[in-house]
């Protein structure tokens, strides 16, 4: 499963097309619209979370670009919910940068945000779902 948050800028001539529906029908993707606006000059702006197989995702992305939509992936940031994290260490198996590591001998699991590359591998591996993807919320304002 692959998931990304994208910002889309639509030219005014396609604002009324059922683009998102096509993403579901043609590419088997699921979506979550986080924001959608049509500006006065009729161009559209949307923040969309797209989920699906990586291949379908890439095909979907090509489709969007072929329509003249400007697609940008939103700068994402990983955060650990300290309440949810129960300090097991399972995430250290997949973290490629060593941002998640174990402090010994205490066996405390440390998250060093500075070394995190936001690869998101830990997000679904964490059994407590304590690792969260955050994105630039100013885009949603």
């Amino acid at each position, binding site marked *: 499963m692959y998931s990304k948050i994208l910002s889309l800028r639509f030219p005014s001539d396609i604002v009324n097309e059922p683009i998102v529906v096509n993403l579901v029908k043609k590419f088997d993707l699921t979506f979550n619209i986080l924001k959608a606006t049509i500006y006065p000059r009729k161009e559209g702006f949307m923040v969309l979370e797209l989920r699906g197989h990586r291949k379908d995702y890439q095909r979907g992305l090509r489709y969007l670009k072929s329509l003249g939509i400007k697609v940008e992936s939103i700068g994402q940031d990983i955060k650990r919910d300290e309440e949810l994290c*129960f*300090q*097991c*260490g*399972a995430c*250290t198996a997949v973290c490629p940068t060593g941002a998640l590591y174990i402090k*010994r001998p205490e*066996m405390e699991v440390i998250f060093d945000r500075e070394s995190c590359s936001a690869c998101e591998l830990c997000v679904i591996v964490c*059994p407590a*779902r304590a690792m969260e993807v955050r994105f630039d919320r100013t885009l949603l304002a």
Partner: protein
Amino acid sequence: MAQKKVSRTIGEINRKIKSGKVVVVTAEEMTEIVKKKGARKAAREVDVVTTGTFAPMCSSGAFINFGHTKPTIKASKVWLNGVPAYAGVAAVDIYIGATEPAEDDPLNRVHPGQFKYGGGHVIHDLVAGEKVELKATAYGTDCYPNKDVTKKLTLDDLPYAVLLNPRNAYQNYNCAINLSNRTIYTYMGVLKPGMGNANYSTSGQLSPLLNDPYYLTMGLGTRIFLGGAQGYIIGPGTQHNPNARRGRNGVPVSPAGTLMVKGDLKEMDPRWVVGVSILGYGCSLALGLGVPIPILNEEMARFTGVSDEEIFTQIVDYGNDYPTGDVKSLGRVSYAELKSGTIRVNGQKVQSVPLSSYVRALEIANILKGWIENGKFLLTEPVELLPTARSRRKKS
């Protein structure tokens, strides 16, 4: 001059607890004490050793009575927040299992499945005081005409809710590696190909059953820390195997004993009862459990003094061997090595990864220690001990 042998009873320990004179240490502290002073001296000084473990524990679940409805219903199918519960018990009695995924979960259709919500999460939400939607359907009888009920309820609304786990606190468990050439998603976590990592899941020297390897103090009626409340051992758990191979110190070197436990859900704390999603495998419940071990004699001091260096487990390949049902040990490794972060398998260095929280396990042992010191927790004499090993039965 022979010194008198140490021997104390649970009754004596309880009198010391009541008078505030009891000496309680955690299993981690006991290891140091026995190392420094020897088992005999440790036995003389220490009354109780507390243990702890916090890890995903499948084979957990809750018996719930959701109360009679108006008009009455004899539920034949029940869902809690969309997670099916077993309703073939009585009219409004159900059992919700920790590993049951929500009915509309995509499971592993897109592999590896995420298993975002299941029985363990329902149990956590109840303990956290959140509203849970109950849906029940029935075929209808003269005495129970209702065929359909949907209502929101909280733990407080439930007349009865008990955590009753058929198998918890495994005494030792495999160290899992993957010899195949693809990443696999198991109940032992993500295992990278070609021995990319080695996952293990016990709290080692803090683990309850590793501190009483022959179950000489535990059985039906032993009061324990369970999910933040006081619960009980009610017998051997499923797959309890006292005859697993053991080291010279009596500690099993592969999965062995297990516990069946129960406790009142209404007294538990959500911090210690946590729903988990194991990638590609399923849902489960991470649970905090701690057992107090009375130091009845020098032998119990020696057992509880066990250190990570002296506890070994077997390395098992989950890539090829485990799925076929042929578990071969690829070698032994101590918990001290596992906790160091790297082990050696066939000459190759492999990163070792814990799935069991040592930090939380220690917290449990300390909480239990506090309860006993403050007189809030009295030890109980088990009515019947857990079945022990054949070799041990011959000896005694």
